[in-house]
């Protein structure tokens, strides 16, 4: 085009520019964008603060101090009268802590007759040693009379001291660990007999009044059962209800009633769902107390409105042209919904489900009334056995007097958040697959 004769190419007469207030509008644009960025930053900053607070308090809960001791399964201690062949209860009732104590006495080189020192030793090892050693003997009675290296949990206070969480500046009488115990601890540490290990117990133990032997095993199973129940019930029911309301229902009083009802249920305080659960599921239908099944049902009812509201919004957002396209091909309304509308609405449904499940996963109040805020030591085998839930465990630990429980509580929160993140990641992956702009 360079060869256009210059004389025919007159410069374009500058069009009279209008003032369309660009400067101000751009300022507004920038401001708007900044608001957005600030909003996100605020959200993320709070997230960061919360996470940092939780993690910095809780990460130590994933480690647990143990003392490695050569335990001699002394027949004299376990079965002083030699009746174990005839009376199996002997092996159960035996004084196992004594075994651990003896080993520790030997290890530290304390004179067994030094009564005050022996008393100080009492609080050194966890009471859980009883069960631990009993299980070893019960599994294999032939260990009696032999010596074996066993990792015994340190008592909670020693665990805290070992992790440096106890202020040694406070006068001895007000501390939970004595100077003598600290000396022993340092000695064992120097010998390498006392060390921190990854705290698998936190994931497997049930509730306990001793911090070092308490874990979230029961809570994890309970929460898992409940989430499965909520997902299996709330998602299909919620989606079905949304489909009915959004795609099939005539707009009349009845559907208005349902709609208002659903929105209203979202505002009902969660504890009221607990009341409902108690009245309907336990008292009327006679389901068991403290059971994950009932918890799941209650949380389902609580989660439903959230899922329905989100799903309806997502369904309504699918453009009408897709509906006509499907109907015009001779798809029935049902086919239209299930083949086209639902897949297109999936991202929104997922979001609603995640938000609903996240709430369900974090709720304590409704579980209070159906007996799930409880001390449950034995892991449930079915959803009908007594169980607790993650937030319940957190709540209960938060109310414990012992300091070591605070650490565990933060650890439990971390685990809960990991659960949530796993859920979120699943949702992201699914959402990616479904999300489209049209």
């Amino acid at each position, binding site marked *: 085009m360079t060869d256009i004769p210059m004389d025919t190419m007159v410069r374009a007469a500058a069009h009279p520019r209008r003032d369309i207030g660009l400067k101000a509008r751009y300022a507004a644009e920038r401001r708007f964008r900044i608001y957005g960025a600030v909003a996100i930053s605020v959200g993320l900053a709070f997230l960061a603060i919360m996470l940092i607070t939780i993690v910095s308090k809780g990460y130590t809960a994933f480690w647990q101090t143990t003392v490695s001791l050569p335990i001699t399964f002394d027949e004299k201690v376990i079965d002083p009268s030699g009746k174990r062949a005839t009376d199996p209860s002997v092996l159960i009732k035996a004084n196992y802590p004594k075994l651990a104590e003896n080993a520790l006495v030997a290890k530290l080189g304390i004179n067994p007759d030094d009564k005050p020192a022996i008393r100080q030793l009492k609080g050194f090892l966890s009471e859980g040693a009883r069960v631990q050693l009993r299980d070893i003997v019960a599994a294999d009675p032939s260990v009696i009379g032999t010596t074996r290296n066993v990792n015994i949990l340190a008592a909670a206070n020693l665990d805290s001291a070992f992790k440096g969480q106890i202020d040694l500046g406070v006068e001895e009488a007000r501390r939970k660990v004595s100077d003598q115990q600290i000396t022993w601890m340092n000695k064992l540490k120097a010998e390498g007999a006392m060390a921190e290990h990854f705290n698998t117990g936190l994931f497997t133990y049930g509730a306990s009044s001793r911090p070092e032997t308490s874990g979230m095993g029961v809570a994890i199973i309970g929460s898992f059962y409940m989430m499965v129940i909520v997902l299996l019930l709330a998602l299909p029911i919620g989606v079905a209800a949304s489909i009915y309301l959004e795609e099939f229902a005539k707009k009349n009083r009845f559907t208005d009633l349902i709609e208002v009802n659903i929105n209203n249920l979202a505002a009902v305080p969660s504890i009221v769902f607990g009341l409902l659960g108690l009245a309907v599921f336990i008292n009327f239908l006679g389901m068991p107390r403290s059971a994950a099944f009932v918890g799941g049902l209650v949380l389902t009812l609580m989660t439903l409105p959230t899922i329905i509201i989100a799903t309806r919004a997502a369904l309504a957002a699918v453009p009408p042209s897709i*509906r*006509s396209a499907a109907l*015009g*091909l*001779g*798809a029935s309304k049902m086919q239209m919904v299930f083949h086209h509308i639902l897949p297109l609405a999936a991202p929104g449904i997922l979001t609603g489900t995640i938000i609903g499940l996240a709430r369900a996963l974090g709720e304590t109040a409704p579980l209070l009334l159906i007996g799930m805020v409880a001390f449950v030591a034995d892991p449930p085998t079915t959803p009908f056995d007594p169980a607790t839930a993650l937030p319940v465990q957190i709540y209960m630990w938060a109310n414990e007097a012992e300091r070591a429980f605070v650490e565990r509580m933060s650890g439990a929160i971390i685990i809960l958040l990991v659960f949530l993140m796993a859920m979120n990641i699943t949702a992201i992956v699914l959402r990616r697959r479904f999300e489209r702009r*049209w």
Partner: protein
Amino acid sequence: MNIMTEQSLENAVGDKVNAKSNEVIKMRGDKVGVFYGEKQALFDVDLDVRLNQVTALIGPSGCGKSTFLRCLNRMNDTIDSARVIGKITLDEEDIYDKNIDVVELRARVGMVFQKPNPFPKSIYENVAYGPRIHGLAKRKADMDQIVESSLKKAAIWNEVKDRLQEPGTGLSGGQQQRLCIARAIAVSPEVILMDEPCSALDPIATARVEELIDELRQNYTIVIVTHSMQQAARVSQRTAMFHLGYLVEEGATDKMFTTPDDKRTQDYITGRFG
């Protein structure tokens, strides 16, 4: 409006294409009226759609062409505010009868819309969807066959044959519309309703679609809404002219375009053509 006499008169005269005496009426509208809420958009339309012929609906924008077309396969049912009165028959059956299955009706009376509306699925799936729900293909190979032939008939096969798995929404406007035509053809309906099917198409594609319409006419019955008088003249055997919700005039296409009875038709077709 003396359409009835007009019609009978014109029927007596006979039709340019199907001059045979056994001209069959595939669909018939009898005093059809449509309300959108309070507002009446269509008034007392009496119109016959003849078997194996192409009927063109013309008229200025907003006159109710699309509305009438949507009555023919009851797509108006999906608009909450819409209410249809009068009677429409397909093969002498009242399609607004209680016993009529509207889904089956729509499978028999297919539709191509004014705005292309492909599903946000792959091109293949767009076409295969209809045959799948109607169980028209037993095996994958059958389905492939249906998809290919439909796309070919809609004159889009060459453009998309290498990207059948890409989304239908990624096509250009015209390609999308042709895809929608292919989709409608794939279920082999008896009647095909087309709402300005070529408005987004270029002339070559338009020509192909018009050929296709002509070809389909052998086996199917077609009702087409168009703004192009020439298109109406080219593809249709019968033309109906709407104005402000009324059927102004209906008759054999050549008669309509040469000696219309109604002043408004006259005015309209002698306007500046597109």
